């Protein structure tokens, strides 16, 4: 007998005659709401992310203000080149080694969805967001969010996302609550998170 048969057999025996119809799940919680950009900003700032609100044409200028001149920036292959200032060295990911990504000063990506109520941005590996490792190793992550990508809550975000893509939900910079149960920023992920919010 395989372990699979053994475990499934035990579970069926454990349930006995209880293994019947499914249970009705009451879903009286909020499943849709009004998107609130001010709330998103408030939540992000609360996590100590830096928020910049501007028009798409001003992205490059803003990034040149965030990053020192000559900084190395890794970007996913589908990121609009117009977003990047001429003051930085841009390295486009086409299968970079982890060491190269880790050596970069920053990464710039788009996002798939942002959740106002929880201050979360979600990356799904689309061409303008790239492989998961890109937004992981550099110490500074700049992500660009369009207002129409913002949803009110978690249910709307999940409804927009595909489970068949690798998803990374990011709520503020890397942090830990492991020392005396207080949230402090900065462990293994990027210690600085900048969110550029477009109208």
């Amino acid at each position: 007998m395989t372990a699979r048969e053994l475990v499934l057999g035990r579970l069926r025996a454990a349930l006995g005659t209880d293994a019947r119809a499914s249970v009705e799940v009451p879903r009286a919680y909020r499943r849709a709401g009004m998107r609130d950009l001010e709330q998103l900003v408030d939540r992000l700032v609360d996590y100590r992310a830096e928020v910049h609100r501007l028009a798409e044409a001003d992205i490059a200028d803003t990034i040149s203000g965030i990053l020192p001149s000559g900084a190395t920036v890794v970007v996913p292959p589908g990121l609009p080149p117009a977003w990047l200032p001429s003051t930085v060295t841009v390295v486009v990911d086409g299968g970079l080694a982890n060491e190269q990504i880790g050596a970069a000063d920053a990464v710039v990506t788009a996002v798939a969805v942002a959740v106002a109520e929880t201050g979360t941005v979600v990356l799904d590996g689309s061409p303008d967001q790239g492989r998961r490792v890109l937004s992981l190793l550099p110490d500074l992550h700049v992500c660009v969010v369009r207002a129409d990508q913002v949803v009110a809550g978690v249910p709307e975000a999940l409804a927009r996302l595909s489970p068949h893509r690798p998803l990374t939900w990011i709520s503020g910079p890397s942090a830990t609550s492991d020392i005396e149960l207080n949230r402090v920023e900065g462990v293994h992920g990027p210690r600085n998170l900048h969110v550029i919010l477009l109208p």
Partner: protein
Amino acid sequence: MTRTFLGMPVTAPPGVGHLRGAEPFPSAARRGLADPQLRRNLGHATKTIRAKSAGVIGEVPDWQELRAAGSAIKTDVMARLPELLEQLEAKVTAAGGVVHWAADANEANRIVTDLVRATGGSRVIKVKSMATQEIGLNEALEAVGIEPVETDLAELIVQLGDDRPSHILVPAIHRNRAEIREIFLRTMPGVDSTLTDEPAALAAVARRYLRQTFLTTKVAISGANFAVADTGTLAVVESEGNGRMCLTLPETLITVMGIEKVVPTWRDLEVFLQLLPRASTGERMNPYTSMWTGVTPGDGPQAFHLVLLDNGRSAVLADEVGRQALHCIRCSACLNVCPVYERTGGHAYGSVYPGPIGAVLSPQLTGVADNSSLPYASSLCGACYDACPVKINIPELLVHLRDQAPHPRGEATAMAAAAYTMNRPRLYQAAQRAVRLSRLAGRRGRGIPPPLDGWTASRDLPDPPAQTFRDWWATR
């Protein structure tokens, strides 16, 4: 190899893993109670988290509706567990993953060590996982010469301090910042004594210490917070980014998951992703949540193994009242509100699952006889039930398990005698008079004589009243 008869639910085997303490709760608790530093650390940490959690739960207008949904989804999962696991297996396999089934801790440890050895690696990086602690995976890996590196900050503190975890969420909750600094100075090469005990400085040291290990280790081992049956998606919820490192950088990922962690649909995550962070770390959302379905070409590990672990869970499922302990999403809110946990700390519970949920889960996984003192590690105040985001009725379970625990003969005899007496008014009156005589005899404040002295080991016998109700009534 002989096997238990097919279909008989079996408890977790002894001699492997960390579900059984070396001594009963009352004697282990005494050590925690006598440690003023431990009590200060715990009191501070649990007070902090209670306030934070209450704040973010208070701003969600539909918290009770979310709890009701979470509870119902879990009830549904338990009722359909075999079919949901088969569905999960099919979806993970279709997405390029390999699914393994482990009847118990020994089998899971064997599967994982064989998988690691097959990669040729001699070191693994680990994401914090209760399931792998439960089965003692680190010891199994070390026994065959594979070095497990815990990458969660608190787990690292525990591992470097040669310590035991004492909390589900924050295994090093019993340590304060000064003690953590001490451990880092002692065990991490290249850390100099100018290191302060500022949490951000301590976190930065951990970042430097582990970065090279993340980049050079080929195998990672994780647990899972959720596994979605209808898509095959796995989810890991974390804070530091160590989880992302382990789930992204290595070539091979091995996830060990208790079979109760499956949820039926993608949509069900909308409930748990709201409940878990607010109940657990008291955040609107934890910093990082990773979700993956099988293998993604060109992104992350190209070999993915999912180990489905029973290890006593089928035995818990067999108890219709007890099975709600399997609803637990490991948020640890019940620990943070428990007056007993706050004073004794997690080590007193013996098992990797401490606190109220541990007091009902551990005895069921091992069989009540092996953890018979844990159902009594509670005042039944009910704070855990109120705090639980999936509404596990822990007080009900505690009483249910107390009923199953072996009771001393003296107790049963005393209860039978009391019932006999109370059923006979004259006898009862005589007994009351006899108790009053003990007042004259000056027995105040002392315990009951053996064999009933267990009852007064941690209680004072109340003074018998000068006048009973019956006496007073008769004089009216």
